[in-house]
């Protein structure tokens, strides 16, 4: 900074520490709640210090499920969430990179039309066309299936644009050199373009994994079989079950389990995450 103003620097740190504390508070409360017994929540205020029931709470939700809700163990739901998040992230990257390849490296009739059709998907969030989409998926017999959880969500205008932008920055001569070296289109794609896109793919993966894991409305609508529940959508059901007195300790244990994987991904891959976030918005 330009001039040394100790009190202003000090004030900055105070603001930041307060900010971090406020941002972390809800998760702290949830963490604490997940370590307490069920009787700590009947009256008064929520406990602010950890209790002794951590292991039994987590064991219960992960492997046994919550008796009153009739829901399967959270372990299975987390697995479902993982399958859904991975399918969506990988599926989106895969179909976007090949469509961007087609759009940038070929000229063919209806190319612009295809580009615009992909573009339009930006304007149709699932929440907006939820009913007719549900009907399509149900007509195709995809309710209660991993395919139904992921495939309808894997079209991606953002990822296609990102790859398109990136491909346009790849020097022309690389493709020409590869052609002179005897590489056909697919060989060039695999040997040159995909390795060069690795960072972009990783950055997108972080963003899309979070997107997939955090889906709520979609799994809520198309799963009725508890074996296909995802953890994010199941929390609500759980919190609702014993409407008067939800079992806060196990609900919060579930909350912690639901937020942990994507949060860990962001913290572990912060640089890729920031890159992905900034570039997908361009």
């Amino acid at each position, binding site marked *: *900074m*330009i*001039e040394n103003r100790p009190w*202003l620097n000090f*004030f*900055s740190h105070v603001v*930041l520490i307060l*900010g971090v504390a406020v*941002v972390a508070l*809800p998760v702290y*409360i*949830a963490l604490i709640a997940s370590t307490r017994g069920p009787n700590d*929540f009947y009256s*008064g205020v*929520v406990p602010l210090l950890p209790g002794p029931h951590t292991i039994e709470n987590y064991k219960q939700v992960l492997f046994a499920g919550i008796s009153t809700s009739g829901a399967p163990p959270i372990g299975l739901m987390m697995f479902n969430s993982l399958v859904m998040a991975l399918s969506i992230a990988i599926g989106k990257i*895969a*179909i*976007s990179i090949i469509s961007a390849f*087609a759009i940038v490296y*070929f*000229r*063919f009739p209806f*190319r612009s039309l*295809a580009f615009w*059709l*992909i573009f*339009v998907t930006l304007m149709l*969030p699932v*929440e*907006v*066309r*939820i*009913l*007719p989409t*549900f009907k*399509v*998926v149900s007509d*195709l017999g995809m309710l209660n299936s991993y395919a139904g959880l992921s*495939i309808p969500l894997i*079209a991606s205008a953002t990822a296609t644009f990102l790859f398109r932008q990136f491909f346009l920055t790849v020097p022309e001569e690389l493709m020409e050199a590869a052609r002179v070296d005897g590489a056909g*289109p*697919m060989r060039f794609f695999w040997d040159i373009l995909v390795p060069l896109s690795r960072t972009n793919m990783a950055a997108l993966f972080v963003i899309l994994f*979070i997107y997939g894991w*955090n889906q*709520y409305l979609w799994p809520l*609508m198309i799963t009725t079989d508890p074996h296909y529940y995802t953890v*994010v959508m199941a*929390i*609500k059901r759980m*919190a609702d079950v014993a409407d008067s007195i939800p079992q*806060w300790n196990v609900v*919060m244990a579930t909350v912690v389990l639901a*937020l942990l994987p*994507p*949060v860990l991904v*962001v913290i572990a891959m912060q640089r890729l*995450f*920031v890159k992905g*976030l900034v570039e997908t*918005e361009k």
Partner: protein
Amino acid sequence: MQTKRTLFRSKTLPYLLILPQMAVTIIFFLWPAAQAVRQSFLREDAFGFKTTFVWFDNYTQLFSDPTYENSLRVTVVFAIGVAVLSLVSALVLALAVDRTIRSSQVYTTLLVWPYAVAPAVAGILWWFMFNPTIGILPYLLSFVGYHWDHSLSGFDAMILVIIASSWKQISYNFLFFVAGLQAIPKSLVEAAAIDGAGPYKRFFTIIFPLLSPTTFFLLVINTVYAMFDTFAVIHATTQGGPAQATNTLVYKVFQDGFIGLNIGSSATQSVVLMIIVIALTFIQFRWIERNVQY
């Protein structure tokens, strides 16, 4: 539209490459959207036996419906609340981080992770914080004599969903503000300092005006976020209540269509929302174009 100088020659390959994306787009995006448009012109009788083409009846009915008007008002209040709260807090934090040098990375890590928390989970977290019987915030509020109950007070419910939605969005805005601040040439700020401008004067005369493109961009993004991505927050907490106080446009589409089974009205609302998204996307892209040019 831009391509490479030299292109691969193949009649079938590009179609094969673009086929999966096209298939998903057409089956799960365009076809349902077209269905929504079609249904917005139809009306089904109570038993679903007969559908009649009613022109714009659904639209006129929708816009004269007081609950829709209420929903529109709720959405505006909600979107402004989320945008203001999350933008202001993010800007304050970004300015503070910009002053710290050595520790900025640590603070950034500690501030960005809420982006990864699902909206539904964020809703539940704050729902728990605000739980009228045992929540910590109502407990603290009782000391100032405020009796919090979001299941009865529409105002409380609105505050709850605004806070839960903003909490998740702060990290996003924060990252963009930090990037925007770093993009301001140090020489400009230094020149202002030499001209005698103190930190506050510098902020309002140099930094904030230079940050305005970022702010505008985030304003659009936050509006889109508040309008569409917060469905889960509302569904997991207030479910539009109490007494429609948090029934935003997106939530209403779901409620009228899926719970109320009023297909025609739900489809009509979908179409209205699509028009809003198209307008917002258009604004966003105009902004990007303008930025790319200089």
